[in-house]
């Protein structure tokens, strides 16, 4: 090992550097992409995985958590993927289009690209797009992300993903599920770019099926919402996997546009869900919701930065967390208001319900306001289940377990219902019940 290195690498860091050396030749991308990958790996080599002394990772120490770095998953077969999709359908009989990314690679044979073409949506393999000489902007980093370690890992290892372009004015009639499938053979690292052109609208369901062995999932969704366009992105992260689950949303919002997202976390041991939302046009709105559940020693982290770089935009952030056992919840939300971003309206609320004495919630709402004519507010609460509510329900004949379930569901449903995507509400509430029923 090079003696001039500033840090002593952990096992996971050594594994990841080895993984890069082994995979480098096979990873997709033009020369410019190779350069970006090299510098991303250098960042990991020099600074290590993000850890608690990096402010953004103070409560979510990936370096301490990640004990090893599994190899990247190899290609999956159609039969394997079909079997997993048949067995694990996140939304039951909900009518939708489906795009499949299996073991990090877009899989056209099980995706509804032809039907989507009829709705004005083109679907392209992200890994092929990376081969273009002009591909660098496909891996563009939001300026508010700084040198984010999770994004660096994504850039270094990105295997593939999907490019969706919704043509001008197209209102896609059904939600598009972008499902990641893992066949248990290793890490999945993907990036997808979703461009919703002027006046168009799209609902995306980001889901995950199968497993990744000892490997992490690192998925980036990069949304470009053009003037007058509307996007709703529902991310569903469930299950009981131990390897790290790392997700990033980047949203760039034009004028008179609307971006709405819900990050729903139910179960995995270590989840980071980070979002970088940037307004680039006036009179737009972003509504960012989060619902997190963790138990055991689990960590559920919802981190976001909403950047009001232009005037006359509204943002609403509403996050709910339920924690049991010794689990930790993290909410880090920052609203930036640039000096000229007058008439900004930002409202942020995070609420946690602690089901055990040892559970811990780190709530960190932040406002950075440099304009003088704005309305911005934030609030944070954290508390235990109200025994009087419980008694009231029991006094009406509802048994204790059922009463607790009802109260947790009621607490979390406030965010799900305000998000207001009615066709997913039932499915998500069923996930809350599943999570509660899975105790012990």
């Amino acid at each position: 090992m090079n003696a001039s290195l500033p840090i002593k690498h952990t096992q996971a860091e050594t594994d990841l550097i080895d993984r890069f050396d082994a995979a480098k030749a096979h990873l997709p991308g033009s020369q410019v992409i190779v350069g970006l990958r090299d510098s991303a790996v250098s960042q990991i080599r020099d600074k290590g995985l993000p850890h608690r002394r990096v402010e953004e990772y103070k409560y979510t120490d990936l370096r301490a958590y990640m004990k090893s770095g599994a190899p990247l998953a190899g290609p999956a077969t159609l039969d394997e993927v079909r079997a997993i999709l048949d067995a694990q359908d996140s939304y039951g009989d909900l009518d939708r289009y489906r795009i499949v990314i299996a073991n990090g690679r877009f899989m056209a044979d099980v995706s509804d690209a032809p039907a989507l073409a009829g709705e004005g949506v083109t679907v392209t393999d992200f890994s092929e797009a990376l081969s273009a000489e002009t591909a660098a902007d496909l891996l563009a980093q939001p300026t508010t992300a700084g040198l984010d370690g999770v994004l660096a890992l994504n850039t270094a290892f990105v295997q593939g993903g999907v490019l969706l372009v919704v043509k001008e004015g197209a209102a896609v009639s059904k939600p598009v599920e972008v499902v990641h499938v893992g066949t248990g053979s290793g890490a999945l690292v993907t990036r997808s770019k979703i461009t919703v052109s002027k006046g168009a609208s799209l609902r995306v369901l980001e889901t995950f099926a199968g497993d990744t062995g000892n490997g992490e999932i690192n998925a980036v969704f990069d949304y470009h919402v053009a003037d007058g366009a509307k996007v709703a992105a529902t991310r569903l992260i469930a299950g009981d996997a131990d390897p790290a689950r790392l997700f990033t949303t980047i949203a760039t919002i034009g004028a008179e546009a609307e971006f709405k997202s819900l990050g729903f976390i139910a179960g995995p041991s270590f989840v980071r869900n980070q979002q970088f939302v940037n307004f680039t046009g006036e009179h737009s709105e972003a509504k960012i919701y989060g619902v997190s559940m963790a138990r055991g020693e689990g960590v559920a982290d919802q981190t976001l930065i909403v950047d009001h770089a232009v005037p006359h935009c509204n943002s609403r952030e509403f996050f709910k967390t339920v924690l049991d056992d010794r689990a930790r919840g993290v909410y880090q939300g920052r609203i930036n208001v640039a000096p000229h971003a007058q008439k900004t309206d930002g409202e942020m609320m995070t609420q946690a319900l602690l089901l055990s004495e040892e559970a811990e919630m780190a709530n960190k709402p932040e406002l950075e306001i440099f304009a003088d004519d704005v309305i911005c507010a934030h609030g944070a609460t954290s508390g235990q289940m109200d025994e009087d509510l419980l008694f009231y329900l029991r006094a009406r004949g509802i048994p204790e377990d059922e009463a607790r379930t009802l109260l947790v569901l009621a607490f979390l449903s406030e965010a799900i219902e305000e998000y207001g995507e009615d066709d997913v509400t039932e499915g998500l509430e069923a996930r809350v019940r599943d999570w509660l029923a899975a105790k012990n």
Partner: protein
Amino acid sequence: MLEIKNLHARIAEDETEILRGIDLTVKAGEVHAIMGPNGSGKSTLSYILAGKDDYEVTEGEILFNGENMLDMEPDERAAAGMFLAFQYPIEIPGVATMEFLKTALNAQRKARGEEALSIPDFMKMVKSKAADLNVTMDMLKRPLNVGFSGGEKKRSEILQMALLEPKLCVLDETDSGLDIDALRIVSEGVNKLRSPERAMVVITHYQRLLDHIVPDVVHVLSKGKIVKTGDKDLALELEKNGYADFVNAA
């Protein structure tokens, strides 16, 4: 229906003694009023009947249709036919009133080994009973008691009582916070539920509720004991002379 024998109880947390030997027998078909000054233990008695664990019974017993009620969980008591109309009904954000009513009714039916009601049957039942109590569809869609006025909360309690069809109804200061019109609606709702198979215990501070819900028996509770029992005229006497005579006698 209800037999309370030598009931002593205290607050679990600080062991303050509240009830000091209550004896009370209520038969099916009867309406008993329990009156008494502030701090006499009226609400404590209602909470102990419903099973709130903030209180500890140190002596005595409560039999509900011959069964030891103190061995039963709050939800078991409810399924067996005990109903407490709360003095301060609780707001539960995120739980729609209609959904709550359905969950409660079906939980009780399940506990009694009965089939769950179908949604159309349930809706029919709720709508007719809600109309009697002036409870609107809008209220039923709202989260339970959230943003309800004092009168709406009490009407919602009586609607729950009408739907759940309990055997023993305990009404804890149901008249508090009600104006004359609301008092009339609530009382009519309660009177409609009077039946030879059902017993009621009406806890109140003031006699005015008893003009509407006329009791068979009136008890005066003071310092944790029943100090006087009489017919409905006892309530009028109290209204005239106040509690002072009884408080001093206790």
